[in-house]
């Protein structure tokens, strides 16, 4: 299967379908079935009803009581995963139809990860805090929860500023036990505070993955014309000659990405750069394979605690 381009994925309105397509792409990467290792725990018996799967009949109880009972199970989860997504206005870039915005790209990746994790039996939660509203979903498993989570992801809007430190702190609180926190952001806001909070969460035993979403247009400036740039979050404007500043700008952005990566690495945090012009499943597959090879992961695709 060929990878789906970001433009194609973005064109699919159904976020769940997009996530499923990406996960299917991940599965064709020569990995073992992601459903291996799924475990269930017996919960109770209930009287058999026509249509129940015969494999769930408790034949031993039928032999003792001569009545048909079906066994009911409770799904068990391996790891609690919290997805923290930056919904600030800067994530709404680029706002043209040719490419998905960074927020849409982050939502697609988050949905794919949630789909993958939940089908592997993990619990997934969601945390977005924005200026006006936020979404907080505790980490849970099951397909109904997956659908609810994807629905929430589908509705997030880029607006205002993002208090990343607070969002991650709340997300860590929602993880009742030690788990995995995946942060999708451009990490523009409050760089120092966000990095400090990431290190703080990692020090408390949580596994943290920092996924930095950046578009090609903001990693390097193209063109020769003069442009009046307007900050999406503050509204500040600056007129600059793109040709004159492009080299210096590219160096500054590269230095910022490298600084973020090194800060994360120093705290044992994985840093993944998500260029929005590249297919998400390829980036995820490479990263998950690398994470799986690093050892200690739970689950065939590397999700879970190392």
């Amino acid at each position: 299967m060929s990878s789906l381009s970001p433009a194609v994925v973005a064109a699919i309105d159904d976020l769940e379908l997009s996530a499923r397509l990406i996960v299917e792409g991940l599965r064709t990467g020569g990995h073992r079935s992601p459903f291996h290792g799924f475990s269930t725990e017996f919960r109770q018996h209930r009287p058999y009803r026509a249509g129940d799967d015969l494999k769930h009949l408790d034949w031993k109880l039928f032999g003792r009581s001569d009545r048909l009972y079906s066994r009911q199970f409770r799904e068990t989860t391996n790891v609690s995963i919290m997805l923290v997504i930056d919904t600030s206005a800067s994530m709404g870039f680029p706002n043209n139809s040719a490419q998905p915005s960074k927020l849409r790209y982050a939502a697609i990746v988050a949905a794919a990860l949630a789909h993958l994790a939940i089908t592997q039996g993990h619990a997934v939660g969601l945390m977005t805090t924005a200026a006006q509203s936020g979404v907080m979903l505790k980490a849970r498993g099951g397909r109904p929860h997956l659908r609810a989570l994807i629905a929430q992801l589908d509705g997030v809007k880029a607006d205002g500023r993002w208090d990343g430190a607070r969002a991650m702190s709340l997300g860590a609180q929602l993880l009742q036990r030690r788990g995995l926190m995946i942060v999708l952001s451009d990490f523009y806001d409050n760089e120092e505070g966000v990095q400090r909070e990431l290190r703080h969460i990692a020090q408390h035993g949580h596994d943290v993955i920092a996924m930095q979403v950046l578009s090609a247009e903001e990693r390097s400036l193209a063109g020769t014309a003069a442009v009046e740039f307007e900050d999406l979050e503050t509204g500040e404007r600056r007129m600059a000659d793109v040709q004159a500043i492009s080299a210096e700008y590219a160096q500054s952005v590269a230095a910022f990405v490298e600084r973020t990566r090194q800060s994360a690495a120093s705290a044992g945090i994985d840093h993944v750069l998500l260029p929005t012009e590249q297919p998400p499943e390829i980036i995820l597959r490479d990263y998950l394979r690398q994470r799986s090879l690093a050892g200690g992961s739970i689950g065939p695709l590397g999700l879970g605690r190392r």
Partner: protein
Amino acid sequence: MSWGSAGALTGLLLVALPVIIHLLGKDPATRRAFPTLRFIAASRLLPTRWSRIHDPLLLAVRCAVLAAAVVALARPYRRQAAVSGDAASRVARVVLLDTSGVGYRENPGGARAVAQALVDSANTALLVTSNDPAGELQGAASWLAHEPGFADIVIVSDFASERYPANLPELVASSIGVRTVRIGSAGTASTNVGAPSVSWRASPAPAALSVDLIAAPQDADVRDAVLKVVARSVAADQSGGSVRAAVVLSGADGRTELLRSARAITSPSIVALAARLTRESFALPFDVDVSAPAVAASGQGTERVSVAVPASAVAVARTRDGAVALWAMEDSVTAGPRLLLFSTLPARSPVVAHVVAAVVEAIAPRESAIGAPVLADSVLQSWNRTPAAPVSAATRPATADAGASLARLLWCAVLLLLAAEWFVRRRISVASVGLGGRDAER
């Protein structure tokens, strides 16, 4: 380069138009939203409303389009091509007229007539009057280099050997023909018949003559004018002042005393000089009335002077009717020998200047006038050469064709520049679109 419509070149002012529009035109707001401004260096910011030149390449191309179009409308053509339609039959000539030699001074009108005839026989010609024709050769050759057709240089001179280098033909390109035309009778005895034609040439004033001109006080202006004419018409005294003479005009101060003290010519040098003057035999071609008594100025008034010629005097010049107009005697008062020439001509007669000039020429002749060496005819013949064939007419485009060809080239350049302008504009637009802004169409 010449122009068919030079006035059209004023259209070059249009080149300023795109520059003005470029500078005055408001930049169409290339505003676009951006995630963060933290990486946009404040040191490289531009003013919101700017007046500097941006997209200089596009501006330069647009200016070039206008300039090329204007120049094409001015219909340029090469000047050389404009006159070369029948180059094979054309003759371009420079005539160098030597005015320094005695040959010219003997008969300047004739020399000029010869030179003018040479000028008239060429299609394009230049007459150069100079006292140093050899020095004018380079300039003549340069002028001929830009003229179509056969090119030759004609030197009209008496060819005194001192003024011409032996390798004269080598001073000009071999493709240029050289012709020599000798004038005058240089090298032979000059008859000095007739009044010398005096021309005011811009030659250095000769050294002081050893010939005095004695005139009445009221004729001082005449004397000065005569001396001026003589100084300019006769070359410097070559005798180094050894021959001393004085022309005493009628009415001059002390004329009577000079006449009284003058004696017959006896000194050898004065005898030789008088003999030469006699041999020259001035025959004045003018009707001069020498019978009228001259008037000499004195302290209280005027004094009539006798014009009787002493018996010991030697007649030097006579009028047409045989009257003596100038006679020679020797001064017995001065320490050295001095020739005294008494004139019966009225001081204010226009003939005086000519007579004095002729006398001075005779008694203080220049070297050339008394047989200065001149170049032999064989030498002149060796100098003569015919001009090389001009560039073929076939290789010289006609004026109209040449102009049209240049104009066509310029219009092609305009089209190419327009294509370049479109390409540059498109590149800028693509770059702007690549930036993702709304500034695609500028």
